[in-house]
């Protein structure tokens, strides 16, 4: 709350941009809350960009989205109980994530089931907000992110969670890739596909919980899904796609933070807008790129 107040006063008197890029960069890191925001944002972007690739590959975008919303009920519930919202968020996303994982990737009605649970938990969230009076600011932060209110402790927790998710993802990388591409084949090869599906959703739950701090539950797509969705349109090599997704998530976060610092508008708006317009730009340029690609191929064949 205290940090949020600082943020509000700073935003009201937005610093002016000078023409000296070095001065501007120095000013960006002048306040401790901006340093924390950049630190947490960087960790979250790396995790989100990496796991996003598998979310796209497994066509689990809706599950990722639903996880964050289900987490919202957990977070508001935790506040009603007087516990830190992060614990409620983590508990709800973990339980629901692992349940979705156990349902398996092929189940046809899976999205319907997720949607039904999602609607109910959002209803729960509304109830919890009404139970806790004067809670609107906290709820707003959960929904839309509160990256400028992150403390040094939060950064440390985010770092630990970030390292855990990246290590876990690395540990199951090959079999996860295999079962994401062809579950039957991976299973025949002895890959424990259901256990992997549950493990993946558990890792995703931790990643979502981290990302909520930056962009909030409503805007989680911008960091987890959009960068990876752009990356797979450029490359079909898994390692390059993951790296591209991470770089894009980092760029959106850093640029979003920098622009927001010099404007009175919220960070989440800039991060999501950067992600959205990059995606639109990439999709619109596709006919042009494929024409250029064909021309290059013809030139190569002729030469």
């Amino acid at each position, binding site marked *: 709350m205290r940090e949020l107040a600082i943020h509000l006063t700073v935003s009201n008197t937005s610093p002016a941009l000078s023409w000296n890029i070095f001065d501007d960069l120095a000013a960006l890191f002048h306040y401790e809350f901006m340093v924390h925001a950049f630190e947490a944002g960087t960790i979250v972007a790396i995790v989100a960009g990496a796991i996003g690739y598998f979310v796209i590959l497994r066509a689990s975008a809706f599950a990722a989205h639903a996880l964050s919303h289900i987490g919202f009920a957990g977070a508001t519930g935790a506040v009603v109980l007087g516990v830190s919202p992060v614990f409620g968020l983590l508990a709800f996303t973990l339980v629901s994530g692992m349940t979705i994982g156990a349902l398996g990737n092929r189940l046809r009605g899976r999205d319907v089931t997720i949607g039904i649970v999602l609607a109910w938990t959002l209803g729960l969230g509304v109830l919890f907000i009404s139970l806790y009076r004067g809670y609107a600011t906290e709820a707003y932060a959960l929904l839309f992110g509160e990256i400028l209110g992150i403390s040094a402790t939060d950064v440390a927790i985010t770092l630990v969670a970030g390292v855990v998710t990246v290590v876990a993802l690395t540990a199951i990388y090959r079999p996860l890739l295999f079962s994401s*591409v*062809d579950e039957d*084949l991976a*299973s*025949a090869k002895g890959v424990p596909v259901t256990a992997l599906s549950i493990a993946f959703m558990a890792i995703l739950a931790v990643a979502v919980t981290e990302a909520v701090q930056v962009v909030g539950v409503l805007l989680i797509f911008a960091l987890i899904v959009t960068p990876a969705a752009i990356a797979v*349109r450029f490359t079909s090599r*898994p390692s390059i*796609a993951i790296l591209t997704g991470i770089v894009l998530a980092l760029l959106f976060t850093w640029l979003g933070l920098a622009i927001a610092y010099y404007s009175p508008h919220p960070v989440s708006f800039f991060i999501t807008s950067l992600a959205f317009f990059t995606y639109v730009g990439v999709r619109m340029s596709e006919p042009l790129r494929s024409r250029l690609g064909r021309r290059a191929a013809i030139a190569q064949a002729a030469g």
Partner: protein
Amino acid sequence: MILGQLAPAGGRLEVLGEPPHRGNPSIGYVPQGSVFDPELSIRGRDFVGLGVDGHRWGVRLGGRAKANADVSASLEAVGASDYADRPLGSLSGGEQQRLLLGQALVGRPRLLVMDEPLSHLDVRNQIAIVQLISEVARARGLTVLLIAHDVNLLLPHIDLVLYIAHGRSAIGKPSEIITSERLTEIYSSPVEVLTDSRGRVFVVGLEEEVSHPHA
């Protein structure tokens, strides 16, 4: 059961001299109805690479050069080198089937199990794939267990045929099993085996089986 995913209801099963177990490296497998999502953005080369070490934990650290060489050799063997760097989802059914075969062969298996690899291909691709499987199998001394609905395309290549219909089965050399009498008996409906002027054998008559199913 051969892959070790199902336990037999009775009896005993041995695969290549040992009890069946999941992830047997001596078996290459092409599952049924594998058509990849058109949006699937992973190179055919990476997919075949999963046949090398996709079942292992972690990321590939050592043995990169050997793995890449194995993948290239397998792609070469199935004639998929030209489109191995394109996204799997953007390839045609025949191209995907070749990559599935490449993936199954990359571990140098002794037994190749293919579950209806021809069912979603056009006739030209069906013939090409059958030809390819036959060539690879003979070149590598590989046993192929192929499940199919239509036997005609396979007839020139098979050594042993197993018919399963109406709870009955028959196994033997094609020349013994694929006769009008035996097939009519198995399917309990008239089936004719014809030989054309070039000595090619065709099985006809199962169309009636479909339109007048027996209870």
